[in-house]
């Protein structure tokens, strides 16, 4: 049971990290380019 929890937590963290990548890119939004 705990194996499922920890594996899900690991995968869940990396899914959030992947979303963070695209959130950071979206925040850029093409502004400030010189």
């Amino acid at each position: 049971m705990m194996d499922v929890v920890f594996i899900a937590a690991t995968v869940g963290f990396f899914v959030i990290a992947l979303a963070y990548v695209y959130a950071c890119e979206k925040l850029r939004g093409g502004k400030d380019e010189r």
Partner: protein
Amino acid sequence: MTLNGWLQIVFFLALILLVTKPLGLFMARVFNGERTFLDPVLGPIERLIYKLTRVDAQREMKWTEYAVAMLLFSVVTMLVLYLLQRVQSVLPFNSQHLPGVDSGLSFNNASSFTTNTNWQSYVPEVTMSYLTQMAGLAYHNFMSAATGIALAVAFIRGIARREMQTIGNFWVDLTRATLWVLLPFCLIGSLVLVSQGVIQNLRPYDTAQLIDAPSTQLIAQGPVASQEFIKQWGTNGGGFFNANSAHPFENPTPLTNLISLFSIFAISAGLTYTLGRMTGSQKHGWAVWSAMAALFLAGVLVAYASEARGNPLLTGTDQTAGNMEGKEVRFGIANSALFATVTTDASCGAVNAMHDSFTPLGGMIPLANIMLGEVVFGGVGAGLYGILIFIVLSVFIAGLMVGRTPEYLGKKIESYDVKMAMLVVLVFPLTILALTAISAVSPSFGTSQLNNPGPHGLTEMLYAFTSGTGNNGSAFAGISANTLWYNTTIGIAMLVGRFMMIIPMLAIAGNLVRKKIVPPSLGTFPVTTPLFSTLLVSVIVIVGALTFFPVLSLGPIVEELMF
């Protein structure tokens, strides 16, 4: 303090100075795809790896692709390590018939080695089989270090390139870092360690007959040397034995101690030269090196002075050797203080003395070093991209002072870059302070695991979360962290401290790489001067001091004042 002690410290720094240029130049050539003396041997291996893994080495990646590749690689390898620990009892190379590792500890340890932290809340020699040590932990020692180097090089490309979209290919950088920068040096280094007495075998543990009770003692064996050199060279720090570099099978002689210290700083120092080389401003690389060296000397001075003056609680006893509690007599005060400073300046975490037994101010130095972001040479790759974040902040502050758009090596630093830099800077204390605070007010699962009450107990908790989030891995000791709460929270802290800081850092690289180079003008703040190095040191210290001073004042500072 003794002249002999200082001569050893200065000699060590001189060695780091000497290796900076050749190693930095070598790495610049490796990551620029230029020819090196190792190409005839490693070139065919590299091409075979790309062929087998179907990697197109010519294809460059945007920062988002680079980050996604790094994340996918990390999650897969972390899960493999988790499963390897869980099923080690049915796998070969388990001469001691060790059972599978507990799920909470497996998660913590998989997070620890994937993030280059190597925090160990267990006794390795009675927990991990030889297979887990070799195929799980040593493998991650290489991969996490190579990932750090790849990320630093990607950031350098972000600064060096102009009006482009891409910052390199993660798989190529990872492969080249492993094959050229890690493996050859580790092969030679491990053999040198074996020559000094570091063990390398797959034998069952020996049993020694003792003349007093208990009548026998188990002496752990194992493939130590092959794991020991990468432990330092890759600033991993996880020991084969619980005593880490205080164990005579890991660190048997003064020479192996010096090799350990040298290995921890070598790549990170070299990367400052690589930065200068790849950006076309060698003086800037040396300015960064100087700032790091100044912070290193300040840290080692305080640590050495604090330990050399002895333990104030034992006033009246003979303490001519200094505060020797928790230290190896063979290393003494100078080499213990130096090791503690170096291992926490970098994100290594190996220890040859117990930091918990340092005096309050002496113990505060390792803690403060991690809190400053481990940018004093720092972890392999992580130290460089960490200090580049502080450089972005420094030139931003300098720009504010003169009322001009800040520039860094010709690239304008704008609002997006500073926002991302602040995300990197803020996630670190937020994680440490929040988790320490929760533990400090939770007697059932937080403070119950401490060996000391009061400020020293707070320092033990604070150190654990700082070490985890900072991906250092050294233990202050004095805390029983192998519990569900600490294994889970420190496991998450290590992931956050690694990946949630890398992502905005790569975002800055991805933004800088698109920009034009602005020609320097009279208003440009030069990043090659002693003034720049001074400002950089000031920003690092002020950001660290402002953030962590309140909690430090409740821990080691108040403990010092209690004497």
